[in-house]
């Protein structure tokens, strides 16, 4: 019998300067699975949402919100905060889960996801949800908006950093490449983009729908610094985020090789779980697998 994941509250935040200890890596890895379990409950509860792309970005979001980004949940519009543009807006159940655990709003609100009168819309809306920077859902906006934020940081003489998370299917969109040119032209080295390269979009694999490889070479040819990592390996994510901070004169992209639906065997790599909704049996089965992963990281 599956049980709900252990409740998460007052989640520990590792300061930016904290060394990447084995304990920290294990803690963030475990939490990524706890957050997946939370997302599973949200989508199952509202019978609506996108699990696959939320699961593929869990570790990256955990690293950003609980270590890398300088934020103040009590003052979410503090102007010198670091910013994340969550461009793959459909995966927002995972974003909301991280924001709640980071203290931007009560955990209890997560179960209102996609329901009437909720602060948690089907796709992100900045006026309703503390911690959400910009609207998202229509794909392709992330790089250009983040470039604008990075320009503003430079004008302000601030060292704050700007992050954007893109899906790989999203790279089909033309405005993405407009954004790449803008960030490159203005040498925005305060900008880190992470591509959640899970290889699957709504109707099939990205290699079938719209081939985007060789993706690293594409970004490099737009004068970006390119880092490729295993996107579920917390140690690699943390190292890549730090490395990006040290790159001068051009923006950095981290190509995070991930698995859509990561953590639940019958969802992994399956386009059907882009927007599929688990029935009760699938929910129990998925929760059992996630609980097992959580236990492994606890051990």
């Amino acid at each position, binding site marked *: 019998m599956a049980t709900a994941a252990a409740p998460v509250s007052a989640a520990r935040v590792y300061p930016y300067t904290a060394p990447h200890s084995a304990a920290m890596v294990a803690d963030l890895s475990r939490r990524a699975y706890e957050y997946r379990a939370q997302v599973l409950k949200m989508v199952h509860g509202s019978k609506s949402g996108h699990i696959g792309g939320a699961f593929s970005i869990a570790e990256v979001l955990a690293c950003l919100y609980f270590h890398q980004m300088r934020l103040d949940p009590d003052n979410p519009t503090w*102007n010198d905060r670091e*910013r994340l*543009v969550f461009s793959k807006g459909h995966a927002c159940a995972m974003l909301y889960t991280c924001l709640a655990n980071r203290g931007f709003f009560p955990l209890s609100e997560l179960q209102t996801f996609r329901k009437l009168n909720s602060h948690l819309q089907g796709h992100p*809306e*900045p*006026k309703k949800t503390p911690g959400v*920077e*910009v*609207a998202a*859902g*229509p794909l*392709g*906006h992330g790089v*250009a*908006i*983040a*470039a*604008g*934020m*990075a*320009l*503003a*940081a430079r*004008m*302000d003489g601030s060292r704050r950093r*700007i992050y954007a998370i893109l899906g790989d299917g999203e790279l089909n969109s*033309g*405005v993405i490449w*407009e*954004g790449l*040119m*803008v960030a490159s*032209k*203005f040498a925005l080295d305060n900008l880190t983009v992470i591509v959640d390269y899970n290889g699957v979009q709504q109707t099939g694999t990205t290699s079938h729908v719209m081939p985007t490889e060789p993706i690293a070479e594409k970004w490099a040819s737009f004068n970006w610094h390119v880092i490729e990592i295993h996107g579920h390996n917390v140690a690699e994510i943390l190292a890549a985020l730090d490395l990006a901070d040290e790159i001068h004169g051009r923006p950095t992209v981290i190509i995070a090789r991930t698995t859509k639906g990561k953590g639940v065997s019958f969802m992994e790599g399956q386009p059907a779980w882009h927007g599929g909704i688990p029935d009760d049996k699938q929910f129990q089965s998925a929760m059992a697998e996630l609980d097992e992963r959580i236990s492994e990281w606890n051990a």
Partner: protein
Amino acid sequence: MERLIRNPFGSPTPIRKTYGEALVALGAVRDDVVVLSADVQSSDFSYMFEAAYPQRFFNVGIAEPALVDVAVGLANAGKIPIANTFAFLFVTRALEMVRTHLCYGGANVKLAAAYSGLSDSFDGPTHQTVSDLAILRSLPNMTIVVPADSLAVEKLLPQLVAWDGPAYFRLCRNDLPQIFTDAYEPVIGKGVTLMNGDDATLIACGVMVARAIEAAQLLAQQGMSVRVVEMHTIKPIDSDLITQCALETGAIVTAEEHSIIGGLGGAVAECLSQHAPVPLERIGVNDTFTESGPYAELLDKYGMSVDAIVTAVQRAVARKHANPIEAICEAV
């Protein structure tokens, strides 16, 4: 009423240059203003701001979606971005960005829409814009302002920058006669009564304001007393003033450099149908693409001549006399 219009009009002045100067003046008093262009700063004259404040000017290339998105990012950090490109590009190519981030997300971005209406006359229908008001008016939270001469540009631009929320500033490419005296003090959201009259009301915006005044002056010679209202703010529309004019004069004519569908005429029709269903005639482009040619002649050919306005007023007044407002309102 203090005298608001010049008689005769002052000689035509370049709207683009006035706009460029107004940008520079804003830059001097507000360091949060930043200006972006999709590589048309030599067309829209935002190059004047670039020359004065190069650190606050960004040319994003011929990439209108990125133009709006980069502005959204700047606004997120408290800057007040003024994005510049041709009107048609904002409401066609970049419309999704405008809807999602400005109207829905609330990004405080100002869109300076150059070459609006038929004013890029020789470049032809690909570059002209007669649907922007209709498209944008349907989007929640968008404010739409259409200046009618250079003084209006000077006085409305700072208000638009101070306005809390996204806004669209519809700019003419060409020289326009100076209509207003220094007593003109426009306020966003409020129509301005320029001439008094009891027989009908002409409600106009942009380049059509001068033509509406000329039409009213011609009609006065025929003994008809026509009120003229300048409706520089298309959204939020001044429903109170429209209703008052309808009840007091019993007939309305709108005049705009835009399709007769969904723009000023559409907004006035919506208001009248609910509050005071008096006869309404709409002057504008009659649901067609136009062609290349000289600006004034193009306006004349496509239904926006002074004569067309005069005829429309006469028609509206005739309809009023056939169905007096008292009878219409009783029927409602």
